[in-house]
């Protein structure tokens, strides 16, 4: 036997095991035999999918999609990407995908008509600062000296009190617009939001503001959790959940998050 043949034999054997693992859990449950069909937005955005090309595996959701597929035993080429609109996917009915990933927050209302996997992302709390404080380092020490604000009805209040413990009592407001007004009037330096909200506010709403850091996500923040969306009663759910749990445990999910949602967005983890 030549060396080349041995390599191919090993590769074949590996493929067979993988196929077996896939068949073990997902066989007969996918839309198309031997294929794993993932839907994404049309178009799909940064940093969830880079350049609207999920096939590249670049971007947070694209990378998570391939990681889950691999865990379930599908080869990279067995992953099929389709597009769906956001609203169309959360309506009841037959779907053209096995799972759909486009930042679907898991809510009880949606759970009535579709199924969600266990969360693959928990939106962490992030620090938004006004123009005068953009130079602040992403450390607890530096954050303590800022004048803080938050929306009074959110868990951000507890996050400030428990994690930052600022030297000055924070000011609290009724809604995001009032926090914006206070940042603009320079009455507060920093405000606590979940990361997607903070990125949106800094990009669109408050001139000169910047998201300078994010906290490690935690259950107690009661923040949005994104799950893979499936047709109601999809038998694939337990299989997807097992795969997600396993890449969570192995740290693969965390490293994907670090690559695409911390390094790429330029919002470092607060130390």
């Amino acid at each position, binding site marked *: 036997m030549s060396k080349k043949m041995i390599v191919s034999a090993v590769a074949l054997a590996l493929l067979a095991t993988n196929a077996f693992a896939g068949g073990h859990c997902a066989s007969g449950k996918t839309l198309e035999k031997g294929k794993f069909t993932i839907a994404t937005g049309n178009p799909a955005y940064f940093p969830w999918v880079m350049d609207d090309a999920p096939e590249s595996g670049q971007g947070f959701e694209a990378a998570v999609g391939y990681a889950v597929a691999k865990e379930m035993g599908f080869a990279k080429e067995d992953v099929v990407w389709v597009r769906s609109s956001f609203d169309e996917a959360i309506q009841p009915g037959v779907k053209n995908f096995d799972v759909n990933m486009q930042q679907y927050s898991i809510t009880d209302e949606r759970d009535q008509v579709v199924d969600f996997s266990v969360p693959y992302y928990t939106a962490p709390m992030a620090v938004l600062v006004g123009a005068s404080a953009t130079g602040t380092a992403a450390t607890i020490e530096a954050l303590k000296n800022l*004048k803080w*604000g938050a929306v*009074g*009805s*959110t868990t951000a*209040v*507890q996050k400030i009190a428990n994690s930052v413990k600022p030297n000055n*009592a*924070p*000011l*609290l*407001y*009724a809604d995001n617009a*009032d926090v914006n*007004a*206070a940042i*603009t*009037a*320079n*009455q*507060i330096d920093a405000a606590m939001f979940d990361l997607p909200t903070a990125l949106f506010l800094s990009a669109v709403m408050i001139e000169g503001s910047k998201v300078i850091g994010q906290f490690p996500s935690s259950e107690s923040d009661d923040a949005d959790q994104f799950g893979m969306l499936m047709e109601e009663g999809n038998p694939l759910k337990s299989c997807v959940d097992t795969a997600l749990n396993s890449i969570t445990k192995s740290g693969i999910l965390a490293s994907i998050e670090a690559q695409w949602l911390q390094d790429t967005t330029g919002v470092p983890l607060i130390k």
Partner: protein
Amino acid sequence: MPKYKAAGMTRRELYEHQQRRRSLIIAGISTICVVVTIIFLVPLAPGWEKVQKSFFNGAVLTKTFPKLLDAFRVNIMIFAWSAPAIAILGLMIALARDAKSPALFPLRIFGAAFTDIFRGVPVILTVYLIGFGIPGLGLPRPWNSPFIWGSLALILTYSAYVAEIFRAGIDSVHPSQRSAALSLGLSERQVMKDVILPQAIRNVVPSQMNMLIALQKDVSLLSFIGPVEIFRQAGVYKSLFANFTPYVGAAIIFLIVTIPATRYADYLMARQMRERR
């Protein structure tokens, strides 16, 4: 010997005594009936248990009450510096509107415009506009503090009301007193300061007490622009515990302050009525 003689009362006094006792007993019974009905009937309502859990939750109340009292200190602080400022500004506006000299006519216009504007705009709008608007002009810290500008909004609004009450007090002093004082050789200034104002202010004390009580509650509106006073603190706890009991706790604290104040205002009002009769 008849009974009323033994008690040292005339027949009429005895009759009145009996009537009083009768009406006291009836009032007592009727009050007890109403209270008992409420105590027994309200818990029979199908939603009572849920309401009790989310509005009258003892565990949540004991957990949050001390912190609510703490936050109430912020209310007291804002009240303490706003009330004297309101009294002074209100009196000045009232005097401006009452200026007699033709040269001071612009002052009268100013006084009228001031009361029209600040009585006509809801307090919360004034708090928003001044509390976010003026600091937005680019004032440096600490001069852009919501405490300063929020208090100013309260002061402006309330002095408009207070000025109107002072003016009513000034008008309530009979013009003959002014004429008499002038004929004695006192100047306009002296007449106002020594003859009219002492009577005018005394006449309006009960009405001004009511303004103080209203101000005490409206201090909470400052929570909309940032300060964490009792209302905002209660809101934070409401979200944290998903329970409305902290609001009830805040209401209790307000009542502890406002009920004695209201009773005192009533007492002053009644005393004044007696004196005038």
